[in-house]
């Protein structure tokens, strides 16, 4: 029984932290796309984006390199590697109902090439692309996950 007074506040802290993050959490879908003008192949998994990609960009070929569903917790960055030496880091800054502010960093060879803060809401997609590397360019597509 002597241990309960010590453990109670620790347990309370843990539970509060757990509860706060469980309530404030966002699931996003991040796709890493390689676009180029070599060939005319379009990855079937990009069908939902193809129309928009086609109207926005002049590339003829799109290949899905990676697709990840990320669970974002406030202040905790989630990173994925697009290609060796290139990462994208996404951090949930603030959330209100279904809208969220998300900070995005794109890192290449250990240096930030982009830092931005965007708003994500249901149905909205953020595309981050460029610069060109040889014949291709990487495009990150970030959107709230549909469940």
């Amino acid at each position, binding site marked *: 029984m002597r*241990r309960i007074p010590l453990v*109670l506040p620790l347990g309370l802290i843990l539970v509060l932290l757990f509860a706060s993050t469980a309530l404030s959490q966002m699931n996003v879908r991040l796709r890493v796309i390689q676009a180029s003008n070599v060939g005319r192949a379009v990855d079937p998994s990009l069908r939902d984006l193809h129309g928009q990609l086609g109207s926005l960009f002049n590339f003829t070929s799109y290949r899905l390199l990676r697709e990840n569903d990320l669970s974002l917790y406030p202040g905790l960055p989630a990173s994925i590697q697009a290609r060796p030496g290139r990462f994208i880091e996404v951090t949930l800054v603030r959330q209100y109902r279904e809208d969220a502010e998300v900070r995005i960093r794109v890192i290449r060879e250990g240096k930030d090439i982009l830092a931005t803060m965007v708003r994500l809401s249901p149905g909205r997609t953020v595309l981050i692309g460029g610069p060109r590397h040889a014949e291709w360019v990487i495009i990150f597509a970030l959107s709230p996950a549909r469940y």
Partner: protein
Amino acid sequence: MKDSCSSVSRLLEKYFDQEATDKERSLVEDHLAGCLSCQDTLEWMGDFRDSVKTPVKMAVQKEDFERAWQNIRREIQLQEKSSWWKSIQSWLDLPRFFRKKVWVPAVAVVAIFALLTTQVFFEEASEEASYGALPDVEYVDSSYNVMVYAIEKSKITVIWLFEGQEMEAPSS
């Protein structure tokens, strides 16, 4: 011979794969002694095996698996960084506490109480937040030139990086 060939052909693959029983092996070998066609089929299967195996084995020799391992390790470490539960667990040295079971009911009661109060607290706090006026892109900081497009109709925001004078892919 033809009837014999058709009955043995089913066993030929098992024989080639060294999966035939002793009886089946004996049957096949007796047949092969007098059948050129089945001998050729067996030889073809051997050539086919080499043709599948050789390019694959050669490809293995060309790869840098040490670099691949570095990527694996990095990815695991990145994933572990966002496992906040593990960080808190190690900071509080919880395994030591978990060995004592007497506090479990006390923490369970606290957990239920905290969940109920925390939910109420967050609902009140979030109502005060104002999101209506937020732009889609609050800021952009980059060593490259940046263009930002927002296409309301398709609910897409594009942030495009490019170098110098080159106006890259975005077509409109």
